């Protein structure tokens, strides 16, 4: 078996292991309303950003990493940022570690088609 294929298979342990790994429940909703319950990495952290006014200020950064083959198995395509406001965006929902739910819109997706992972950069969304 190719090492690349093996690496993709290992995502089941690296990304999707909720028992011994950092896998976390993530719900993905596509613009048509199809929902997939997946497991992946989720991040929601504070960091300093520079708005270019000379004052660094606090910001918040959220992202989710998902296995592309799991998305496909759930009947979903690759999430993308939807700029057209006449359509619905891709939505990603997950709880923080204390159980507080958050809904995000996918503002940008960075797929790694070599390894089969997509990293979605997220933006707060009011459903």
């Amino acid at each position: 078996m190719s090492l690349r294929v093996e690496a993709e298979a290992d995502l089941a342990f690296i990304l999707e292991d909720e028992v011994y790994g950092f896998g976390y429940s993530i719900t993905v909703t596509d613009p048509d309303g199809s929902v997939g319950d997946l497991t992946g990495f989720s991040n929601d952290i504070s960091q300093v950003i520079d708005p270019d006014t000379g004052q660094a200020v606090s910001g918040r950064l959220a992202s989710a990493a998902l296995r592309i083959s799991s998305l496909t198995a759930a009947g979903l395509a690759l999430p993308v940022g939807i700029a057209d406001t006449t359509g619905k965006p891709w939505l990603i929902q997950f709880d923080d570690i204390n159980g507080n739910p958050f809904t995000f819109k996918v503002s940008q997706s960075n797929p790694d088609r070599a390894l089969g992972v997509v990293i979605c950069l997220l933006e707060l969304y009011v459903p």
Partner: protein
Amino acid sequence: MIPALINKRDNFEVIRDEIAAILVLESANQQELAAADPSKDSNDWKLRVFTERSNPWEQFLNKQDDKSPLVNVWYDNSNFDPTASNAVERQKSETVFNIDCYGYGVSSDVPAGGHKAGDQEAALTVQRAVKLVRNILMAGEYTYLGLRGTVWSRWPQSITVFQPEIEGRQIQQVVGARLALRVEFNEFSPQVQAVELELVSVDVKRAEDGEIVAEADYEYPL
């Protein structure tokens, strides 16, 4: 040595605080005027004003109850014009106050279809805020920023819009805009206290050859 304690507010401090006070007052007034019109949302005229704060938009970070734009008034720089000043007590100052506006937007669902884009909301919010700030400060009522006799003139030097670094990709959409307001006014500095002469007397005499001779006697403390 300067005999007195320098315990005064310079005019740049007074003017900075006056700019903030005008914005607070007029924002409240505009909200009241908007509330009288049922077709208007008075929150569109709301500004939250700060002075000399480095991180007022910290408020956008975790609590998003109030999404109205933030305004931070801060002193940037002064240039002194020697041709319109005097070397003793008065320096004409051309000072720039930066009025930074921050607009916050969050993407949201539109039940009828589609969605609102947070980045666009943030841009429109900050543009509305900076428009309001410029209109208030350049209104005829504030030609001298309410400090006639102190302020010579005020002028909006520039408006620049900033976006946070794209690499950050923060989850809140925040756009900043800076109105640089140039204000001309006088600054004053401590002076030597004049000492009263105790006696001044002058005798004016005409000499035989017609020359006028003046003789003055006065005492002063040494």
